[in-house]
Structures are given as structure tokens and as C-alpha cells.
């Protein structure tokens, strides 16, 4: 009797483990494989412009290419920062501006997959964003900070210098998703003068690192 219970329990536990591990594997596999499919869509976008979906039923498509030469990072940025785009790569938040326009462009990525490298970005590192029309924008990391997303934040600015914000969840090695903290890397156009981050951010619940 005890023996039977035990074997059932073992089977149930192993099934659960298998299911969870397969689920985790799927998430990482999607994240790792998607760029290969994106590459073709990106090439088509660069050649013809417009929207080219990486696979026919995709609800997102590449809109830019993000590179960090010092870390060997080369990723496609997808349209939209919703969960279904972020599963395949970093996404350009529609609330911000397009990269290169006046204002702040916001690119978000999963801390477990694509944007894990954000923790290695340090001030003065250079980033580049390539747009479908061939423009290559150069940025320089200005600062990183941890933001409590439970605090109200003003929407990304739609004017001023063309800046870039890279957003991911924080802390990097937390296990549970859905935490309130965000790690925000702020980058300014390379060549522009460095601006120290304002003390205003402290009043808004932003902690300078």
C-alpha cells in the first residue's frame, strides 16, 4: 500500500518536473532560436522597407538592430514591448519615440534571456542601433539606475535630445517573475555632452546606483 502510494507520488513528481523543465526549456529555446528567423525578415526590411514578419503568424517584426561591440551583443529589436514580442527578442515600447527622433526611445527585454547583459553595461560603453533605412545611431551609456515601477513615472519624453533607455527587470537573478523593480540603462547620443543624472530622480523614487 505504502509502496504503491510512493510510486504514484514519484510518477506525479517526475511528471511535474518534466512539465516545468520542458516549459522553461521552451522559453529559452524560443529566445535563442528566434534571432535566426528574424535575420531574414530584417534583411528583407532593409532591402524593401515596410513590415516583414519573421513567420507568417508572428505578431511582431524587427524594427532595429542593437549592438554592443564590447560585449559581443547583436540583437534584433522587435515592434512592441508586450509579452508576445519580448519572448522572441527585445521590444521597442510604443509609448516612447522611434530611435533617432527627438525624445526617449525605450527598448525593453527579458532579464532572463536577451537583456541579461544589461548588468554588464557600464557608463561610457558604446551602443549602436541600426535602423531599417540604414542609419546607424551611436549611443554612449550615461548611467544605470533601479526604478520602482510602483511609483508613478512620467511617460517617456517625446522631445529633446534623442536618447535611449534599455529596460529590464531587476534583480537579475531573482526567480519569481513580476517583481516591481526595473533596471534602466540610460544612453545618450555619442558625442553629446555628458549630463549628470538629476537629483529630481531621487524625489521620484529613483535610486541612482
Amino acid at each position, binding site marked *: 500500500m505504502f509502496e504503491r502510494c*510512493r510510486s504514484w507520488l514519484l510518477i506525479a513528481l517526475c511528471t511535474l*518536473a518534466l512539465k516545468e*523543465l520542458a516549459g522553461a526549456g521552451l522559453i529559452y529555446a524560443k529566445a535563442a532560436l528566434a534571432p535566426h528567423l528574424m535575420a531574414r525578415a530584417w534583411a528583407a526590411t532593409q532591402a524593401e522597407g515596410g513590415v516583414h514578419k519573421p513567420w507568417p503568424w508572428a505578431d511582431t517584426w524587427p524594427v532595429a538592430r542593437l549592438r554592443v561591440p564590447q560585449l559581443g551583443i547583436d540583437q534584433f529589436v522587435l515592434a512592441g514591448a*508586450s509579452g508576445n514580442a519580448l519572448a522572441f527578442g527585445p521590444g521597442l515600447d510604443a509609448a516612447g519615440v522611434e530611435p533617432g527622433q527627438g525624445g526617449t526611445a525605450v527598448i525593453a527585454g527579458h532579464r532572463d534571456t536577451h537583456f541579461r547583459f544589461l548588468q554588464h553595461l557600464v557608463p561610457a560603453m558604446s551602443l549602436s542601433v541600426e535602423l531599417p533605412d540604414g542609419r546607424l545611431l551611436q549611443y554612449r551609456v550615461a548611467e544605470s539606475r533601479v526604478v520602482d515601477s510602483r511609483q508613478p*513615472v512620467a511617460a517617456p519624453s517625446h522631445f529633446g535630445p534623442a536618447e535611449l533607455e534599455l529596460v529590464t527587470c531587476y534583480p537579475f537573478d531573482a*526567480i519569481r517573475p513580476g517583481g516591481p523593480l526595473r533596471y534602466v540603462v540610460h544612453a545618450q547620443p555619442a558625442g553629446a555632452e555628458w549630463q549628470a543624472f538629476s537629483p529630481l530622480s531621487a524625489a521620484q523614487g529613483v535610486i541612482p546606483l
Partner: protein
Amino acid sequence: MQYGYTQQGMSEAANWQRLGQWFCFRALPAATGLLLALLLATVSPVRASAVVEGNEVPGAGQMRWHDQVSGSYQAAVTQQSRLDVRIAGMLAVVELEQVFQNTTQAWQEGIYSFPLPEDAAVRHLEMQVGERVVIGKVREREEAKVLYQQARAAGKKAALVEQQRPNLFSNRIANIAPGEQVTVRLQYVQTAKYSAGRFALRIPTTLTPRYIPGVSRAAPAAAEVAALAPAPSGEYTGWAPPTDQVPDAPAITPYLYPQPGSDSAPLNPLHLAVELDAGMPLAEVQALYHELSLARDGQRYKLQLASGPVEMDRDVVLQWRPVTGAMPRAAVFTQQVAGETFGLLMVLPPELAPQQANLPREVVFVVDVSGSMAGVSIKQAREALALALRQLRPADRFNILAFDDSVRPLFAGAVPATRHHLQQASEFVRHLEAGGGTEMRPALERALAPGAEAERGLLRQVIFITDGAVGNEQALFELIQQRLGASRLFTVGIGSAPNHWFMQRAAQAGRGFSVQVGDIGEAAAVMTELFARIAAPLAADVSVQWPQAVEAWPDRVPDLYRGQPLVQAVRFVGALPAGEVSVSANLAGEHWQSALALPAQPGNTQHDGVASVWARSKIAGLLALKTAGEPEQRIREQVLEVALAHQLLSPYTSFVAIEERVSREPTAPLRPGIVPNTRPRGQGPQPYAYPNTATTGPAKAFLGCFALFIALLVHVMRRPEQDRV
């Protein structure tokens, strides 16, 4: 192997089985145990550092504001409110007391933004310091501000209450001494809303942060300077800079406590006492979101919070239902003030059953999935939408537009409500997630765009599901009024603290009505009722004949949906005339008329508050002309006249109370003490949300390894005698 080669097949199978068992129960658990130990070892220090990080979030424990001058964190001014509600008939006179406490060692200027009902007629202000009481006066807004600023600079105690939106006010209290308490009392009148058999009185206590659309006006450097030095400039310190679409953004974006509130240790405590005299026998009295204890004396009820003060993180909603048949079909309340007589008329047209042959219709659902809807709101919205889809009939056509920064329609155009389309719609609704900004304009433009359907003669109904958390309300009302055409717009308010003014005015401009879902359990009843009322015949062309000339507001009565009474406030030009007031309407193609005798002796039946309600209705009526293109200067003059005569708050008038004696030496520094509001219960905090950027990958991997580890333990814990065998 004792079975030898004769039973090779069987023995091979047994070998495989043993190998399988070895793999399943020995090797795999051992491997995962090792993996798990490694994972735990790497994870624990990181988790520890995360906790440390969390503690550094300003205000994570106690609310403290960063002081820019001294570079230290200072405790802020705290606030607690007491609501004393006296309801007589359908009029409620509410006494709101706000007690501000300076907990610092410096002089503070308390700055508190608070919501009130959108139809509140604020008619009295007093400030109490110790035993001294100062009565406030209504002044023109600019004049009041100057008076206040002078008093503040001179070191006198002063209070200034300004209207930022019809349902959002701000209170500034100058020169609160260290450790001192200042009490500000406001009195306002509001009317209980009757709908579908019950009265409801709704008092908001906090607000959902409004999304501010548009392009920032000030350069960022200038905005920072303004935010750093709020007191000298006399402006407000919101979290949003002014934009081209919302020039007063800082005044309507007050800070919120970063931590959620709780009833056991409220951040902004609320005391509540209600005296209800409905004037008719009641079948039911209840508060929707609070626990109240009830004492009854005949037809009078006394209600109190059952267990002490509560958190100001949700609306107070009181409902009472008259005994069937006890509700009069018509009533008039009167009041004489300074030789003038004011009246408030309520008439309920008869209710007809829905028409037999329902006309086919086109229903467009517009659902807000912006960042402010995060938390319970999006769940309520999904539930409401899913239930609404079930109300569609096969002959109807429908579409769903979800919007945040951009509009995402489900179908390119309206489609028939076939089972296939409804299934697609349910799938779409299930996957709605909140995030991003609240750009309502493109969504409304698209929803109200006349399509090919307009030519088919279908009834067009737009059902707008939102929390109304936007800063550019007026522009949206104008848009609705201009683009409405033959469509009708109905609003469904969502969340613990929606913007009721937006709900009511948008529905009014859209010639529909507004309903509220404050709790996911209410969604089913609310949506069923919404569709039943939309389908029932209207009372159209309502006209009211008074026995003599009156000044009536609203001057044009809108079409009335089922269960919705006609409410009109009037000022009699002379004394109260004898005679009858007659109401007529076109009800489902038939003429309907009703007459009501005016009370002969107005002196005996004085109803406090009728005059204020009339003046408030007039102000609302005048301001509504703005959407029709009336020049603001003309409106301003007329509003000023009414507001000053009746001592009411309005967009152009403010209450100011100034104590004569000087309490602060003008040389002692004065700090701005912002009183944050509590975040609406269960809601996400912000109008712009950072995207969710974590996968469930690590959690899944962890759980998987954990399950394997437990499996290993279970496997190891076998009985000792089995080992011996």
C-alpha cells in the same frame, strides 16, 4: 541471471526495466539534487542583495520625502479625513474634515490633492488651529491665490482650496508649526443618484493617476527647477510636467504612497458616519466596499464603520432600495434662501418592457488596456467584456478595439456575432494585458467613425470600458460631441477609484449613460443591466412645464433610459407659485404625461442644499457650453456671478481662509510638505508602466528541479525492511 538464455526476451525486458528504474530513481534524482544545490548556492546571495536593494527604496517603510536643501530625508505632513454624511431624501449634506499633522521639526506647507464627487457643491470652508476657527471666503481664483501667497509669506496660517477638475480639488495649508495639527473642514452638497430601483451615493477617497498625453512644454531642465522649488512659485508639484494638451498637469498628478495601503494601519485614515433619512420605508441599506454597522430608528438609519478607521483607497458607495411601491413616481424638494425659492424636481417615467422586435445593432466595445488598468482593473474589464459578448444576438454586428498608446482592433470592421467570431473575441479578451499609455483620442475617433454600417440603418452603440485616468478630459468630451452622429456612447467605469467625472460627462456627451464595476463580482449584474437598459425604450423629447417662469438647469432634458429619473433644479423668479408642474415625454412612440402639485406651504418643507444644487447645476450647465464652442470669457463671467452669490467652489473661484495673527517668523524657512494619496486598492500605480521584463523560465526551472529533488527524497525514504530484502 538464474533464468538463463531460455527466457532471454523476458530477461532483456527486465534489464531494461531495471535500467529505467535506475535512471528514474537513482541517476536523475542525484543529478537534479546536485543541480538544485548548485542553483541554491548561486541564488541565495543574490536574493539577499535584492532585499537590501529593496530597503533603499525611498518610502518603502515610512513615507519620507527627499529634502533637496539639506540632502536628508524628512518625514512629511500626514492627513486623516472624517466624513459626516447627512442624507435627507435624495440630498446629502457632507461635512469633510481633514486633519493635517506636521511630523517634522521644520515649518511646513501642507499640499494635499483630494477627490470629491463630480457634482459636489462645495459651499463652506473653515480652518481650525487649536481653539481658533477661521471661516473661509470664496474669491476669484487668482485673487484667492494672491491673498494666500501673501499670508504665507507673512507667516500667517492660511488654507486655500482650489478646484482642479470637477472631481479633483487641492488643499494648501500654509505655516503648520513643527508638531502642530491644523484642521480644515469643508461642507458640500451632493445628490443621490437613482437608477433601476435603488439610490446610490458615491464618495471617492483617492484617485487613479491620470495619464498625461501630449508633448512636454517646458524643457526638462526648467521642469526640474520648477519641481525642486515648488513653494516659492506657488505652483503644484505633480509627477508630470505640463504638456501642450494638459497645461495644468502638475496640479492633477499628485504623488502616491509607493506602498499599498491597508485597513489595519491606514496611511490616510478615513472615519465615516452616515445619517440616512430617505423619507420612505427602505427594503435594504448597504455599503458596497465597506463594512458598516447599522442602527435604525423608524425610517432613519445611522451607519458607522464597523471596525474603526479605514484606508482611503476605494470609493465609499452607499445604496438604499425603497420598499416596492413606496417610491413616489415624482417628488419636488424646495428651499427658500434670502427671499428666493429653489426647487429640485425628480420624475420617474413608467418602465416599459423591451420591444418585441429588437432592431439589429452594431456594438463597438472600446477597452482601455493602459498601464493604469494594471492589477484588479484589467481583470474586471476582461470579465465585463466577456459577459458583454454573451449579451450579443446572432443578428448583431460587433467589434472590439483595445487601446493603450495605439489602437488594436480585433476585426478590421464590424462582423456578425456568429459563434466563430465570438470565439475569436473571447480568445482576444482573455489575452488582454495592461501596459503603456492612455491615448484615448485615436481610439474614440476610430470607434465613432461612421462606417458602411451607418448606411444599413443599424443602431450603433459604443461601449467604452475604462478607468478614465486621463488628463485631457475636456478635449475628449468635445471629440465625442462632434463625432457622435447617430451612435450612442455608454461608459463602464472600472477599478477602485475611477474618474467619475469622465464617466458621467463622456456618457452625457455620447447621449448614453454610465455604469460602474468596482468589484469583479459585480460585473455580471452590471453588464446584464446595461444591455437590458440599452434595449428598453427611451423617454424622448422630455419637456417640463412649470406654472410660472423659472430658470431650470439642465435647461434641455436629455433622453431618459429605463429606470433613469428626470432631475431638474429650478429657481423660481418670484415666490413659490401654487399649481402643478407637468412633465410630458414621448415613450416608445406614445405620448406620456404626468402632473405633480407643488407643495402649498414651502416654509414647512425646507430642504437644505437645494439652492446649492441648483447653483452647481447651473455652473455645470454653463461649463458644458464650452464643448459647444461658447467663448470662455462669457462663460467665466456667468459662472463667477453664480459661484460668488452662492459661495461655491468652481473652476474660477477658490475658498481661502486666513488667520490674522502671525505664527511663523518670516525668517524661519518653510518647506513644502506633500501629502501623498493612497494607491487605489489592488490597482497598479502608474499611468505609464514599464513593460514586464521577466520570463517564467527561472521559476519553471526552479520548480522542476525542486519537484525532482522531492522525488529523490521520497525515493530515498524507503522502509528499512525493504532494504534488507
